[in-house]
C-alpha cells in the first residue's frame, strides 16, 4: 500500500492551519534547509532527486533552478504557477485549500535555493477559498517567523504575495503569466531570453507549479534517494492524479509516478459505471492526446506517455465511456482552446476558429465531403507553427482523436447526424 506524502494533511480536519501542519512535522524541511544546506546544495539535491515539473512539461526542476544567474545585480523572483486551468485538473486547488503551508514551505526552500526574496503565487481568481486559505496561511507563517526577515534565525528574507488571475487559461503558460503579472494582456513571450535569465520585470525568475514546489520540502526532509526510489528512475516521485469523467470514484489520488493508467482508472478510481465500458482516456488534461481503451496499460509518467504519443501533462485523467460521442468531446475540447487562445499568433487564432466551425458542423450532422481532409490540413498548418504550446496541444489532441476515432467522424459526415443521439 502506498503511503501518501503530499496529501497527508489533506483529509485532516483543519489541515489548512499552521498548528496542524506543524504537528505533522511541517516546516522542519525549511529549518533543515536553512541550517544544513547552502542554496547551491539545495539545487544539487533537487537535481539529484530527478524531480520534474508537475505543471505539464516535465522539465527537470533542479536544472531549471541552476539556470538562474548567480550575479545579484537584479532581484530574483519565484513564481508559483497556481493557475490550474487545464480542464480535468484540480490537484493544486485541493492542496492550497487544505494544506497551504506545505506550499509555503516548498516556496521558501525553493526561493532560498535560487536566491529570491519575493515570490508571487499566481492563482486563478475562481479559487476563492484557496486564495483565502493561502492568504491566511501566509499571515500565520509570517507571524511565526517562517516568512519575513531573518527566517528561523538565518539571514534569509522572503515574502510571498498572492496574485489573483481573472479567468484566462493562457496565464498558465509561464511567460504569459509573467506578462499578466506585469499588468499586461497575458500573451506568451519570445524565448530566449528564458525566464530564468530575464523573466518578471526582466529579472531572473523561476516559475514552478504548485505540486512541484510541494515536493521540495519532502526531498529536503527525506533525501533525494527516497524521492528517486519512487516510480521510474527518470521520472520519479509521488504524484497527484486527478481522475474525473465517467468513472465511479472521481477524485484526487496520490500514487507513485509511472503507475499504469489502467490500474489508476480501474482499481483506484473504481472503473466505469455499471454496464458501461471505458472507451478512451485523456491522461493529462485536454492538451494530452486521447488514449483508446486498448492503450491503457501505459505507465503514468512523462517518458512512457510520450512514447505512446500522449503526455502526462497535468495528470488530469478524464475517462470517457462507450456511451459518449468522441466527435462531441473533440469539438468541446477545440472549443475550449479556441475560446482560450490568446489571439497572438495566426495559426492558433485563425486556425482554431476554422476548426471549430468545421467540427461544429460535423457534430450537428452538416458535415461535407472533404471536411476530414480540411481538418487534417488544419492540424498540419497549426501543429508546430504556433507561438506557444497552446495551439500545439489543441492540434495534437485533435490529431489523436482523428486517428483513433476516425470512423466516428466519418459516420457523422456520412449519416449526416450524430450516431449517439
Amino acid at each position, binding site marked *: 500500500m502506498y503511503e501518501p506524502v503530499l496529501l497527508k494533511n489533506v483529509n485532516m480536519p483543519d489541515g489548512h492551519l499552521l498548528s496542524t501542519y506543524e504537528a505533522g512535522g511541517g516546516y522542519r524541511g525549511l529549518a533543515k534547509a536553512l541550517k544544513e544546506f547552502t542554496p547551491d546544495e539545495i539545487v544539487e539535491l533537487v537535481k539529484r532527486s530527478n524531480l520534474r515539473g508537475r505543471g505539464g512539461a516535465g522539465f527537470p526542476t533542479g536544472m531549471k533552478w541552476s539556470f538562474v544567474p548567480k550575479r545579484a545585480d537584479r532581484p530574483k523572483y519565484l513564481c508559483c504557477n497556481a493557475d490550474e486551468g487545464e480542464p480535468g485538473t484540480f490537484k493544486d486547488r485541493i492542496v492550497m485549500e487544505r494544506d497551504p503551508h506545505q506550499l509555503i514551505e516548498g516556496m521558501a526552500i525553493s526561493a532560498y535555493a535560487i536566491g529570491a526574496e519575493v515570490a508571487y503565487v499566481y492563482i486563478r481568481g475562481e479559487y476563492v477559498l484557496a486564495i483565502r486559505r493561502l492568504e491566511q496561511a501566509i499571515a500565520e507563517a509570517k507571524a511565526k517567523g517562517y516568512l519575513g526577515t531573518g527566517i528561523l534565525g538565518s539571514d534569509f528574507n522572503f515574502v510571498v504575495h498572492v496574485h*489573483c488571475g481573472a479567468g484566462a487559461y493562457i496565464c498558465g503558460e509561464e511567460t504569459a503569466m509573467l506578462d499578466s503579472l506585469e499588468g499586461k494582456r497575458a500573451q506568451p513571450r519570445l524565448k530566449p531570453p528564458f525566464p530564468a535569465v530575464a523573466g518578471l520585470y526582466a529579472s531572473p525568475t523561476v516559475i514552478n507549479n504548485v505540486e512541484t514546489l510541494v515536493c521540495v520540502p519532502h526531498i529536503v526532509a527525506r533525501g533525494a534517494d527516497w524521492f528517486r526510489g519512487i516510480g521510474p528512475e527518470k521520472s520519479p516521485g509521488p504524484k497527484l492524479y486527478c481522475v474525473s469523467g465517467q468513472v465511479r470514484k472521481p477524485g484526487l489520488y496520490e500514487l507513485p509516478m509511472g503507475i499504469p493508467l489502467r490500474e489508476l482508472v480501474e482499481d483506484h478510481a473504481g472503473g466505469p459505471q455499471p454496464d458501461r465500458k471505458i472507451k478512451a482516456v485523456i491522461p493529462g488534461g485536454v492538451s494530452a492526446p486521447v488514449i483508446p481503451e486498448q492503450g491503457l496499460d501505459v505507465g503514468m509518467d512523462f517518458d512512457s506517455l510520450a512514447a505512446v504519443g500522449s503526455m502526462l501533462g497535468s495528470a488530469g485523467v478524464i475517462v470517457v465511456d462507450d456511451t459518449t460521442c468522441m466527435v462531441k468531446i473533440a469539438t468541446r475540447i477545440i472549443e475550449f482552446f479556441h475560446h482560450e487562445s490568446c489571439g497572438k499568433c495566426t495559426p492558433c487564432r485563425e486556425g482554431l476558429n476554422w476548426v471549430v466551425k468545421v467540427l461544429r458542423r460535423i457534430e450537428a450532422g452538416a458535415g461535407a465531403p472533404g471536411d476530414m481532409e480540411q481538418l487534417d490540413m488544419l492540424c498540419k498548418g497549426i501543429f508546430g507553427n504556433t507561438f506557444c504550446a497552446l495551439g500545439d496541444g489543441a492540434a495534437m489532441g485533435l490529431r489523436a482523436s482523428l486517428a483513433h476515432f476516425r470512423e466516428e467522424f466519418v459516420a457523422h459526415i456520412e449519416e449526416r447526424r450524430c450516431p449517439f443521439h
Partner: protein
Amino acid sequence: MVTMREKIEQAAARYPDQRSAIMPALLIAQRVHGHLPGPVLEEVAEILGVERIWVYELATFYTLFHTEPVGRFHLQLCDNVSCMLRRSEDLLMHLESALGIKKGGTTEDGLFTLSTVECLGACEMAPVMQVGDDYYGNLDIGRIDALLARLHALAPHGTGADPFAAERPGEERHV
C-alpha cells in the same frame, strides 16, 4: 471603512511597478461596483497613474471582469469536458427554463445572470457551478432547485460577490 482607493493602493504596494496592480485593482473595483464601466476604469487608471488603455485592455481580456452589468447572483455553470461527461447540459437546460433566460442572459429582476464557463478546476465534483465565491458540486436538478430557492430567499441581503457572507462568520464552508 477602507475605501476602494486605499485598498487598491495597498494592493499596489506588493509590486515594484504600478502596472502590475491593474488586475488586483480591477478585482477590487468590481467587488465595489459590481461591474467595470468606463468611469471606473478611468478611476483605476488615475489611482495607479497608468495608461487608461492598459486598464481597458485587461478589463476586456480576462473573463472574470465584466464591463457590462451582471445579475446579483452570477450562476457560472461549467460545461467543459469533465462536467459535460456528467451531464451538465441537462442542468443548463433546467436552469434556462427555471429562470426563463438563455445562457448569457440576466433575469428581468436583475437577480440572476446565467453563464457557462470553462473548467472550474473542480472536476472531482462534476458537474460544478460557481455562484459568487462558492463552488457547488455534484449537482443534479434537485440540488439546483434547492440552491435557487435559497438564493431567492437571500436576495434582499446577499451580494453578487459573496452571497453567503452573512452565513459564514469564519469562512469555513464548502460543498
